[in-house]
């Protein structure tokens, strides 16, 4: 799986170089949310890297795990030290493509529904995912939004039995990025 991920990265990088119609942000916003009767967990990361090649429909997200800010300091500590092990696995990545890229006119203002697929890597575990998203094209750039669900157990994130009632296994992930054309 790791080899596949490296191969995907190389393909993406080559595609980005070849076509050069890149849109980029380094201040993307990703947040996650989960709720049980005992605990609500929410954390925001506003320093998300995202790049999109509009010609090929390939895109990449890179998320620094320590940049997730929680309301409670203790939750943030446990998240980094015990659950996602941020020192060992500092970044989460998504490398993928828009499956229906031909249906999206990136040069024409409008809102477009997209089907995306790719490899999501969290906590060192890579999984193929298929999700839906929305692209909003305007004269200011391209906004991309998505909401999807992940199961912690699928990424080898163990919840100790003592707090299993308080922490849900499923987390809602919200993605909201404003991409600007990269001018060199």
């Amino acid at each position, binding site marked *: 799986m790791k080899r596949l991920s490296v191969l995907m990265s190389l393909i993406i990088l080559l595609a980005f170089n070849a076509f050069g119609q890149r849109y*980029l942000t380094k201040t993307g916003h990703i947040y996650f949310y989960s709720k049980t009767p005992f605990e609500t967990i929410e954390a925001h990361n506003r*320093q998300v890297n995202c790049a999109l090649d509009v010609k090929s429909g390939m895109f990449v997200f890179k998320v620094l795990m*320590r940049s997730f800010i929680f309301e409670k300091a203790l939750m943030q500590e446990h998240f980094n030290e015990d659950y996602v092990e941020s020192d060992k696995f*500092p970044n989460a990545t998504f490398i993928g493509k828009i499956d229906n890229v031909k249906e999206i006119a990136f040069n024409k203002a409008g809102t477009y529904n997209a089907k995306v697929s790719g490899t999501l890597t969290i906590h060192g575990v890579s999984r193929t995912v298929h999700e839906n998203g929305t692209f909003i094209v305007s004269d200011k750039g391209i906004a991309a939004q998505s909401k999807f669900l992940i199961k912690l157990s699928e990424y080898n994130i163990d919840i100790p039995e003592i707090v299993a009632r308080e922490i849900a296994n499923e987390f809602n992930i919200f993605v909201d990025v404003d991409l600007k054309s990269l001018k060199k």
Partner: protein
Amino acid sequence: MGSFGNAQQLKKTMMKILKKILGIFMIISVLGIAYVWFFVYNKPHRNFDKAKPDVILSAQSFYNNYAKKIKSCNGKVVQINGIPKKIETNDSLAVVVFVFDQGMFGDEGVRCTMLPKYRNSAENLDLSKTVTIKGFCAGYNGTDVILEQCSIIK
């Protein structure tokens, strides 16, 4: 009759002692729960504005150390100085950006997310002068080293 009276007296005394012990136990329990609630479960985030830096160095060497994987400062309070290239702002944050390299995705360097109280001073920074900034190091994301909850020292 006399021994019955003594037994009653003893029972009363025992009850008094038991009540006192129970009272003390309850007070300790309440104080313990309050301590855990306020200082463990809901303990405040570290005040990075007042935190003493673990590492002090120039923005350039900080970036070089990270990009070349020489040194990691993840989770530490880092104080850097240098001349910023730009200040990026949006509705929710201000980021002071030091640029030292160019990559496939544009500028690469050190990105400092400012604490809300330093937003205005960050926006008014003179981009021709050296600035000293302190924040906690979130790590390197492959293009930039990220400092969070930053404050301007001078």
